[in-house]
Structure formats: C-alpha cells, structure tokens
C-alpha cells in the first residue's frame, strides 16, 4: 500500500520500471526464440552488454542515493562495486575446481602458478554460494560502516570527505594490485566456468543473469525510492541542505548518514557481483579512482537527486562509450569529453532536467495563453 503510494508520486520511475519489465520480457524471447537470421533477433553479445549496463545503472542509483540525497560527493563508490565483484569472483573461481589448467582441486590457477601451497584463510567458504552471497553484502557493508562511522563522527564534510573516499579506493586499488594479497594481482580473477552449476557460456545462463540484473535494478530502485520518500529520506535531504541546522533540531545526523551510506554500499556491492559473471573478469582496475569519477558523471548527466536520472545517465554514457569506441576509435575521447562539458554547461539538471524544463515551459505557455 505504502509502496503504491510512493510510486504513484514517481511517474518517471513508474515509466522506467515499466520499460524495464517490457525489456526483460522481450529480450529473452528475441534472443532465445527468434531465429538468428531474423532481423528481430537480439544477439547474446547485446544481451550481455545490456546486462552490464543494468549493473552500472544499479551502481549509479547507489551513488545518487549518497550524492543526490545525502550530499556526499563520493569519489570512491566503485570500491564497493569492486569488492562485491571480488566476492562473486572468488565464488566463481572456487567453482572451477579441478578444471583449472593445472588441475589442482582446491587452489585457483594463479596460486598454483605462484607456488602457493594452501588456500589462504580468506578464501575459505567461498565455495558455497550462500557464503559468497553473504559476503557480497557484508564486505562492502562493513567497510562502508567503518569508514562512514569514522568520517561522519568526526564531521568530515565537503571536499575533504570526497578526497578521503578517493584515498580509500586508491589504497584498495594498490593493495589489490599486490600479488601477495592473494587476489590474483593485476590479472585479477578470470576464466570462470559456471555459476550454481549452470554453464556461464550458455545463452540461457546469460539471459538469467540479465534478468537477475534487471530484477536487482528494479528492487534496488524501489527500495531506494522508499528510503528517500520516508522520514529517513526527508531527514537526509534536510542534512544535505543544512547539516548544522538539522543537527540543532535534534536529528542524529551521523546515524542517518551512516545507514544510508551503508545501504548504498551494499547496493553497489550487489551490482558488482552481478557485473562480474557477465563480463567474465574482475581485476583491481575496477577500484581505479577514475572509475568512481566516471560514475559520478553518469549521475550528473542523467540528473542528480532523482534516482531515475542516475539510471538514464548510466545507460546513456555507457552506450555512447560502446558506440564511440567502435565507430570513432581514434577520436572518441573528444566526443565523450564534449558530451560531459556540454551537459554540465547547458543541462545543469542533467538529461531529466529536460523533462521538468518542458513542463515549466508548458505551464508558462498555458499561463500566457490564459492572459
């Protein structure tokens, strides 16, 4: 009931969920049932690509939650995404079992390769899916909790907070690059075979992962919408706009910030976990501070503080990247750079700003006509 009420006020969100539903019904049919030579056939390449975009979209929703509603410009959200991805990657690595090139029943290939004798303790348990799933939620959650607890308690704000989130993801990147860490160093985790017993190369598995991503995005979106429409969400907007004032009124600013931050980190972790089996590799490059900056740009391009804007931004930027890198391999950076500059200059509210702009125009016109 509450849900219906909230969504009723979120027309674009409803549209988006609708489109998502249509796509998730249409894509499997067009991929699996329509013959390959038909013009309507969607190739597995496209399905995987769409699945990847959807996980990015979920990550963007998570980032918008903290940036758009808490006012924390996070430059380290990709770290949570990558951690979720690593947890999933470790599960997939353990699933390979003795099908690795060295045929070792327990150790992943890269450990045999570097002559490790036994599985490090932090790899234990990842052969079980439930354990990995738990870790996908717990590890980003705990990191966000510890980091947030320290940062919010000592009232680090503004650019200082942004830069230390960046320092966090940078430190993690350097750490994961180290081969001694036991996460495969620069090569990361790769050569996955199957997930929950299903072959990762099969079209049906790809479709299932695509659907899981769509479902995760839908659920993540709705949950985020509920949070921002609830008292918690309103309080966080109050914090964003006037932190000291909210504190004086009596809100426990730190706690509110912390819980929204942790929730957002978990969403990012889940997005990462869904991303890894679809692209087939996770490596420390995902922690790169540039990735986090790009993520913020998706949100800004789509429109900050709207949630659906984040989704649109993520899809648009990533699609243009895919398109430009193939169509204009030599000069695509110009196109992407220009896109960023133009959107910031002319669309301060992002793509979704067009909507409200049109709306206000309409009402203006109507008013003019009346007079």
């Amino acid at each position: 009931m509450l849900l219906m009420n909230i969504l009723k006020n979120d027309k674009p969100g409803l549209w988006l969920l609708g489109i998502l539903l249509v796509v998730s019904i249409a894509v499997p049919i067009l991929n699996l049932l329509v013959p390959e030579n038909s013009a309507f056939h969607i190739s597995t390449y496209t399905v995987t690509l769409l699945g990847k975009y959807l996980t990015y979209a979920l990550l963007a929703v998570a980032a918008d939650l903290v940036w758009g509603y808490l006012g924390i410009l996070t430059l380290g959200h990709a770290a949570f995404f990558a951690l979720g991805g690593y947890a999933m990657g470790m599960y997939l690595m353990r699933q390979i079992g003795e099908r690795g090139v060295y045929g070792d029943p327990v150790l992943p290939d890269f450990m045999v390769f570097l002559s490790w004798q036994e599985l490090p303790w932090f790899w234990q348990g990842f052969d079980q899916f439930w354990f990995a799933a738990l870790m996908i939620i717990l590890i980003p959650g705990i990191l966000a909790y510890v980091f947030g607890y320290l940062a919010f308690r000592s009232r680090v704000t503004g650019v200082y907070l942004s830069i230390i989130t960046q320092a966090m993801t940078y430190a993690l990147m350097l750490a994961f690059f180290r081969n001694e860490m036991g996460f495969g160093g620069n090569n990361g985790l790769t050569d996955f075979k199957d997930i929950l017993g299903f072959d990762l190369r099969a079209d049906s598995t790809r479709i299932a992962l695509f659907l899981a991503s769509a479902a995760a995005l839908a659920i993540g979106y709705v949950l985020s919408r509920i949070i921002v429409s609830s008292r918690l969400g309103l309080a966080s907007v109050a914090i964003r706009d006037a932190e000291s004032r909210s504190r004086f009124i009596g809100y426990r600013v730190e706690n509110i910030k912390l819980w929204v931050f942790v929730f957002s980190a978990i969403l990012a972790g889940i997005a990462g976990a869904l991303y890894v089996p679809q692209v087939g590799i996770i490596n420390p490059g995902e922690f790169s501070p540039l990735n986090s900056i790009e993520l913020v740009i998706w949100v800004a391009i789509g429109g900050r503080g709207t949630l659906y804007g984040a989704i649109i931004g993520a899809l648009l930027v990533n699609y243009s990247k895919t398109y430009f890198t193939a169509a204009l391999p030599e000069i695509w950076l110009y196109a992407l750079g220009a896109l960023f500059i133009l959107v910031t200059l002319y669309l301060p509210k992002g793509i979704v700003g067009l909507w409200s702009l049109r709306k206000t125009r309409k009402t203006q016109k109507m008013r003019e006509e009346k007079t």
Partner: protein
Amino acid sequence: MPLSATTVSVKKTFPPLLFFFVSFFISFFMLMSMAQQTVASEIPAESSLEDAWKTLSQKNYNKKSGAIEVIAQQNPPEARPAMKAMLEGQLYYAKRGKALYFLKEVNDNYEFTPLFDTDPALKPVLQENRRGFKKVKVNNRLRRMIRQLLAVMQLKHEDADIRLAAVQELLKNPETEAADLVKNAIGKETDQRVITSMQTLLAVIQLENGDETAQLAAINTLANSLNSSAMNALTAYQAPTKALENKAQSAINKINDKRDLYAKAETIFFGLSLGSVLALSAIGLAITFGVMGVINMAHGELMMIGAYTTYVVQLLMPDNIAMSILVAIPAAFIVSGLVGIAIERGVIRHLYGRPLETLLATFGVSLVLQQTVRSIFSPLNRSVETPEWMSGAWQINEVLALTWNRLYIIFFCLAVFMALIAVMKKTSLGLQVRAVSQNRTMARAMGVRSKWVDALTFGLGSGIAGLAGVALSLLTNVGPNLGQAYIIDSFMVVVFGGVGNLWGTLVAGMSLGVINKLLEPWAGAVLAKILVLIFIILFIQKRPKGLFPQRGRAAED
C-alpha cells in the same frame, strides 16, 4: 631433465619439428661449453701490434679484448685516442681494406679521418651517410677493460679531476700491478683528494699482500675511507692474528656507523625531493581548487601541457639544450596559463557557485586535452633531454651523493612557492584574488572586476601547473598520461594541507614525501604508498579541515 618430456611427445607425433628441438638443444649445449671456455682459457696473446689493430675489425669480442690489451701494453701514440673513440662508439673501419677511421659528425655529415696518417693511400672521407664503414663494436666488458687501461695511462694527466677519476676507476678493481704505478705517482701528486684515493688504493692492496705491520697500517687507513672497495677488502680480510681481526672488525663497525648516518641523510633527501615534486604539482591546484573552489580535474593535463612545452622548446633550440630548460620555464607558464584562461572563459565561468559541476566539466576538458595531445604528438612518449648542468650528482663523499636534478627541483619548488606567496601578499592582484575568494559580492561592490580576477587567478594556477610540468619532464615520461599519474596525489596534498592554505600545501607535500620515503625501506614501495593513504584518511578524521584549517566565517560553507 624435465624438458625431455616435451621432446618425447613431439618425437612420437611430429617428426619434422624435432629438428627445431634438436637445434635448440645443440645451441644450448654449445652455449654451455662456450661458457666454460671463456672462463677457463686465457686469451691467446698476440705478439704483433699490427695484428692487434687488425683484430679490432673482427666480430669476436674475446679476440678484440686480447688485441686491446696488446695495444695498451705497447702503448703507441694512437692507442689513447683510439681507445677513447672506441668508448664513444666513434672508431670505424672501412669495409674494404679494414683500415681504421675516426668518425666525426659535422653538420649532419659524417667525416672519417684515418687513424694512421702515415699511410698516404688513406684520405679523410666526408659523406652524408655511414655507408662503406662499420663501427668497431665494443660491449660492456670491453668498455670496462678499456676504461681501466685508460685509467692507468691517465694517472699522470695534468687535470686533477681526470687523475682522480683514474684512481677511482682503478679502485673498482684493485690489482697488484697497479700498486707500483700508484706508488710512483703518489710522490709527485699535489692534489689532496687524489692522494687520499691513492692511499686507499695502496692500503687495499697492502691488506691483501703486505706483512702484519703493513696490514695494520692499511686497516687504519681504510677505517677512515668510505669507499666500497675499502669495505669489501676489510670484509674479505683473513686476519692472521686475533688483534688484527679485532682491529679490522672495529674498522668495519666504524665505517658502518658512518654509512648508516649518511644513509639516513640520503633518505631524508629522497623524501624532500619526492615532497618537492608533490608540492610543486599541488601548488597550482592549491590556487584553482584551494582558493577558487574549482575542482579542477584538468590540472594534471595542464602539467602535461607544460611538459610538452618543454619538449617543443627543446625541438626549437636543439643546439642549446643547456639554455632550453630556462627558456621552457616562462614558456610553459605562459602556454599553460593561456590554456587555463581559455578553460576559465569557455567553461568554468558558467559554473561559479556550482563547485561540483566544475568537476564534471573539467573532467571532460581533461579528456579532450589528452586526446588533443595524442593527435598532435602521437601517443608515444617524447624525450626531453636533461641538460649537462642538471645531470649527474653532487658527490659529497663516497657514499653520499645528491643528484643535481633533484636538488634543482627542490630549489625550483621553493622559488615558485615564494614567488607565489609574494604575488598573493604583495601585489594588488593578490589582494583582489583574496578579496574575491573570501567574499565575491562584497569585493564586487568595492569595485573589483571579479570576472577579470577570476580569469587571471585561474591562469596563474594553470601557469604554475605548467611550471610543475617542466620539472616533471626531467624526471618522468612526457606522454598523454602524465597528468593522470599526478592528479590524485595533488588533490591529496591540497586537502591534507588544508584547502585554501598555500603554506599548508607546501608543508603537506614535503611531509608526505618524507613519510613515504621513511616507510619505503621498511615496507616496500607499494605498501608505503598504501600506508600513506591510510594515514591521510585517519588524519582527516582527526583534523577534518586538514593541517592548516582556514578560520573564520568564510570557511564555514
């Protein structure tokens, strides 16, 4: 033999390929046997000097080394110039007749002058290419040998520096034969540095060959030397008596104590030099980001432009590399400054009051700048030559040497910083900048042309980024990715020092550099960097506004 597994399977299934494996094995074994030969057999002594000169045009390095020894022993007048030319790669031989020539490059032409001017049939040749001639190739081993032989010849050179270098060269590989030569030379020597080195050399030889009293004297001499050969001689020393052994041990300890002290000084220097690079790359950002509040992601690319400007300046004045860096400093400041002003006028001025949006727009700008550089200069790295006066090191003593380029960069960093402080504190522009950054509306009400000030401030910050680029071009790659490598560190430094505080930036840069270098020997390069980042995160918890927080109302958003 694990390899055999591979061979067996191949033999069974694919005979033609066996050939390759066999040839591989044969070459492998030949190599092994060759190796033993080189170690075991002495090079056949060549009697005639003429034969020796001829041998130089052969390909075999072992034969060449024998020939060089013969030439050095007989020491004809041509020996020294020929050996020097060999070191420089300027000794050639004609493909026909194998006569030896010196090569000299004259205005893109090649001039070959015969080594022996006695033969009238040989004439100097001037041509556009090196066709018809081949280089007398030397490898590392020969080069080292030639240097040693030259050193012996140069013990009596009139220049004290060359004599010193000669003794140092002999010290690298002290041989008994050198002892007599040095004993001869030391009596006539006047330069104190050369005498000390010679004494060390003699002591090293004495320690090995002298009687007990000579050994004792040698230990005493060596205890005061920091030369690594002295240390090696002492460590390898087999003392005949307990007393001498103790003596040697305490000499070793004494040297080690001194070395440790200098090693610490060296570490601090490394730290300061890393710190000055960090500070230099962050100072520009301290203005655009710290003072103006623009989250300038294109800062790194402005440094990159500075570095490329240095490259272009060197291209324009190829004959005067020494001056080129001095010319590049103002040039880079102007070029980066102008690009900065263009960015401000074109993009950033629309975004004041929206600091976060500046991040997005400047990120876009940085992508465009990177790609522009890639299109103009290709994605390959460009080479910036280090001028003579900046290369090498200031040898304070035998274990402590400070590299010149690093020293200059530390001074350069301080100079830039002082100049900037002077501009901000003493000029009317500085006053206006501070006024606008503290209270824009009020400043405008007082008649400050805030738009003009904004553009100039951004230009100033960008220009300083360009200066940092000049310094970086001497240390690292000049390529399209130069900026990205430094942008994150720059932000860390500014934030750690306290946004809006120029002194904070300097102190932060220097201290992060030193901390990093102190950690590095203990934790390794990667871990040291991670620890520094964690340190920054924790430090910001303790002091949420950096080292030197801005005070007053303006600091509260």
